[in-house]
């Protein structure tokens, strides 16, 4: 049995004293893809933020533990945690354009990222970035480095976000609704690129989405959240074909099915 990469044990989270996540248990192995679905406000993003250590002042982990490669993330010093964000754990946002500073060039922000994690060789950084852009089906990488986020389309920004997350070859990638803001066609492209990453770098991915079809397409394991609780958790196939909880059943039924005759 492989060692677990990420493990959540009885995690409880509250915002300003109000509990929003209750007793969540998860285990993620290297290279595994976990799809998290659930109704809006059920605490999916909160869970990811908690693992990233980005809950903020109001948010508190009031119980349980989150382990990364066996070490508790909760008891880590802020600086140590910061150093992990990037090279070990990375994140892709729903709207990557707004997760970048609007008035700085993408290249500058990319160099800043690498510099902060002690990779100062510009040439190497550029080479790697261009390589990744290539993989992401973005041909004009140099041009993108010279661009500002607002100059790129939503799909391009999303892929830039993924490239930035992958620059340091993290072992774990959190993706919080990375494709919801995108067009169906572009969405399909981005999802395929994400899958490639796992295949090439062995990155484990936690992807939050509303699209059950997408989970069924890419995730090895699926988790269903409802009102702050982990309703169901297990192999994707298992859950989809044999949902135990009423909510999960409703969820799966709700997915419009295309009739191809």
């Amino acid at each position: 049995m492989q060692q677990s990469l990420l493990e959540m044990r009885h995690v409880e989270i509250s915002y300003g004293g109000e509990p929003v996540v209750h007793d969540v248990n998860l285990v993620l192995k290297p290279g595994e893809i976990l799809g998290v679905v659930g109704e809006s406000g059920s605490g999916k993003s909160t869970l990811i933020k908690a693992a990233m250590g980005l809950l903020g002042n109001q948010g508190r982990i009031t119980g349980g533990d989150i382990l990364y490669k066996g070490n508790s993330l909760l008891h880590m010093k802020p600086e140590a945690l910061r150093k992990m964000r990037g090279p070990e754990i990375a994140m892709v946002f729903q709207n990557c354009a707004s997760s970048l500073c609007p008035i700085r060039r993408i290249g500058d922000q990319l160099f800043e990222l690498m510099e902060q994690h002690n990779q100062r060789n510009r040439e190497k950084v550029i080479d790697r970035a261009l390589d990744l852009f290539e993989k992401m089906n973005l041909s004009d990488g140099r041009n993108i480095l010279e661009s500002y986020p607002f100059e790129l389309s939503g799909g391009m920004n999303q892929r830039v976000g993924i490239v930035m997350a992958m620059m340091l070859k993290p072992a774990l990638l959190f993706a919080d609704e990375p494709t919801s803001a995108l067009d169906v066609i572009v969405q399909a492209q981005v999802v395929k690129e994400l899958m490639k990453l796992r295949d090439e770098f062995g990155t484990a991915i936690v992807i939050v989405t509303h699209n059950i079809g997408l989970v069924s397409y890419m995730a090895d394991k699926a988790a269903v959240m409802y009102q702050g609780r982990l309703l169901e958790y297990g192999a994707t196939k298992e859950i989809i074909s044999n949902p135990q909880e009423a909510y999960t059943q409703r969820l799966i039924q709700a997915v419009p099915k295309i009739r191809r005759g």
Partner: protein
Amino acid sequence: MKKYIGRRLLQLIPIILGITFLSFALMQTAAGDAVDALYDNTSGGVSEQIKVEKRAELGLDKPFLVQYFNWLMDAVRGDMGVSYISKKQVFETFISKLPATIYLTLAAILVTVLVSIPLGILAAVKRNQFIDYFIRMMSFIGNSMPSFFISLLLIYVFALKLNILPVIGNSEGWKSIILPTLTLAIAMSSKYTRQVRAAVLEELNKDYVMGARARGIRESVIFYASVLKTAMLTIITLLALSIGSLLGGTAIIESIFMWDGVGKLAVDSITMRDYPMIQAYVIWMALIYVAVNLTTDILYHYLDPRIRILQEE
């Protein structure tokens, strides 16, 4: 860039026409008969004949718009008429006093910037902590006192009780600028600190801050490289706007500290009903204000790629 500046300059034309027309109309109605006013201060009676001649000479018998046009043409050439009181060229008088006001304004802006930007940032960063409440309280207090009252208190403390600074402006070199500058800066910083705080807070709450954190960027780097840089754009615009209120605000302060600038000139001119002088003052201050705003816009345009690139297309 050049195209943009050109367009902005073109846009200024109606505004400048508006400014001059409004001022002209205002003073025209206020001053009543300019010739009467001109001879009012020569105590000897001046015959109607002379007045009629003078009116014709000044073109005051022409229709209003013609008068405005003539006046504007003169003004463009730097001839804004003669003071009713001193009988000197208005434009020359104004220009001779302008440096003092600019000097004072710049000093006040400098102090304001030096005080309120750090304080505003500090308050934003330490939001809802003691230091934030303290800074906000101070700015509330500074905001609630008329500037002439602040100046009296400052003079009382620094000139009378401590005796380290002079009361009267323009007298003891750099020392004499301190009190008027402080007075202006207190009022201005009180407003500006809050604006800086709000601007920085707004940026701190943007998604990209979270994004940078998720990429493991150091807080200090996030703050200086991204947040501050972005907030500065707002801060600069706000600064330009406050220059406007500052230009007007110097009038009272200059009168109190006997600072021999255009503000005092304006106040004196108003008490003396010296309409050509008031007119020159109003127009020029408006033009300076417009120029400052234009510069800021261009600067902003240059600094903010969102605007630069989108507008350049």
